[in-house]
């Protein structure tokens, strides 16, 4: 009888500990979202979405140029990062036993752990120094951050395609490369799309590598060899400025950045569960 009682108490104790940790983990998340929402909402109006960064002393203004710039940067980064990541993922899963794969896998793990500002410096050395502070350099840096994420999720997703499915296709007399790019990729596509979306969510909020390779820009897109404005950088620069309307815009930028990332994450969830 005592034994059962002890077990009951231990069970309850562990249960309470689990709930407590859960609450502890949620406190920062909810307080950030709450704070950003309350402060950011006051910044949001029609001007916020259609007007560019106000000049010093100008009242109002918006972040339309930063939204445009962020989308262009993410788009360019995906254009480089998704195909490269996808193809390396395919290589790793199809030739997983080869020595080259082991090396590539290891390097991807290292790359995934490199602080993003170091990647920014890399992009600076490689691109900024030859063509100047530009959206190209920033997109390159973000692509380098994306690649290991896309590669590893693609590899994992393809490895989850059962051998029986591949064998069925091979037994139909379909060449192996076609089996991979049609049957295997289509069976794994939900997980791969999820990986791509999550990598986009990851780079959407990056600021350090962008600051190093592209810098701050208050105007609209002006060519691939020029910088563009960026939401994450807006938060950094505006929040530290002494101008009241810039500070408000920083909160607004933070809010729509969070909403963007939230939407992408929810999309990723939906693709994974339904598709």
């Amino acid at each position, binding site marked *: 009888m005592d034994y059962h009682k002890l077990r009951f108490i231990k069970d309850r104790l562990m249960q309470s500990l689990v709930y407590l940790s859960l609450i502890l983990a949620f406190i920062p998340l909810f307080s950030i979202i709450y704070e950003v929402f309350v402060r950011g909402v006051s910044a949001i109006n029609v001007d916020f979405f259609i007007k560019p960064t106000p000049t010093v002393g100008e009242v109002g203004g918006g972040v339309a140029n930063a939204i445009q710039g962020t989308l262009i940067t993410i788009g360019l980064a995906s254009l480089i990062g998704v195909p490269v990541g996808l193809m390396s993922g395919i290589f790793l899963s199809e030739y997983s036993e080869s020595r080259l794969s082991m090396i590539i896998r290891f390097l991807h793990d290292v790359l995934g752990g490199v602080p993003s500002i170091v990647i920014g410096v890399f992009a600076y050395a490689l691109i900024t120094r030859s063509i100047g502070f530009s959206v190209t350099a920033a997109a390159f840096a973000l692509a380098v951050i994306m690649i290991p994420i896309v590669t590893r999720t693609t590899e994992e997703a393809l490895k989850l395609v059962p051998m*029986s*499915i591949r064998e069925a296709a091979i*037994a139909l*007399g379909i060449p192996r490369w076609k089996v991979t790019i049609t049957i295997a990729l289509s069976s794994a596509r939900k997980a791969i799309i999820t990986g791509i979306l999550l990598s986009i969510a990851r780079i959407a909020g990056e600021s350090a590598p962008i600051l190093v390779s592209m810098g701050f820009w208050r105007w609209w897109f002006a060519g691939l060899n020029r910088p563009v404005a960026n939401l994450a950088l807006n938060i950094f620069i505006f929040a530290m400025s002494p101008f009241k309307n810039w500070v408000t815009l920083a909160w607004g930028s933070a809010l729509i950045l969070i909403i963007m990332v939230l939407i992408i994450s929810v999309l990723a969830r939906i693709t994974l569960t339904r598709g």
Partner: protein
Amino acid sequence: MVKFDIQNLNAWFGSKHVLKNINMKIEENTVTAIIGPSGCGKTTLLRCLNRMHELIPGARVSGKVIFNGVNIYDNSVDPVMVRRKIGMVFQKPNPFPMMSIYDNVAVGLKLNGIRDKRVLDAAVKRSLELANLWDEVKDELNKSGASLSGGQQQRLCIARALAVEPEVLLMDEPCSALDPISTAKIEELIRKLAKDYTIIIVTHNVQQAARVSDFTAFLYLGELIEYGPTRQIFENPQNELTERYLTGKFG
């Protein structure tokens, strides 16, 4: 006419010798059953006939498999072309999960470059009819292949294999995951297909071998113990091992 002439066939997984010096001839448009206890090499023998065995890392084959007069292990032979002529149905139904019923059947042709919708439509209808599935699915060709029952999925897999117009159908315990009614349907189908196709079926169910096959091969520990007309094997086995296996003394 002899469809397969298997000569001195040996197969290994790493250092494990799983098929030992197999010699047998398989006649065109007949059903040949391969029986034997678990681990005797039935499935390996089957997979040696369309060069699927070599896909497993560490697997190795020696000897000849002469198909339509050509050794499929000859250096000049492309295994992809071999597999187009020799279709396969697996133990567990394995339709492509993301594809509709129609696409499951059409995919082999599509990936081999056939785009003409009329040709594909006709091939899908013909293959599903051959597999005795057309009447059950003709109104829902766009539904997912995975939505069918196990027995229907297996017939879908047979239709998929037939769509690329093979000459031979290799079946690896095609009914082991199915209920008796679905099994009966597949067996009926095997008899029907034997008119135009050469069928080799691996089964652990000796009654099934007796019901569907014209010839039976009994394998034990990687060796071909006895091979002959099914009737003779079942009624008058020459080897004591065969008799003991068929009467259920071991298995």
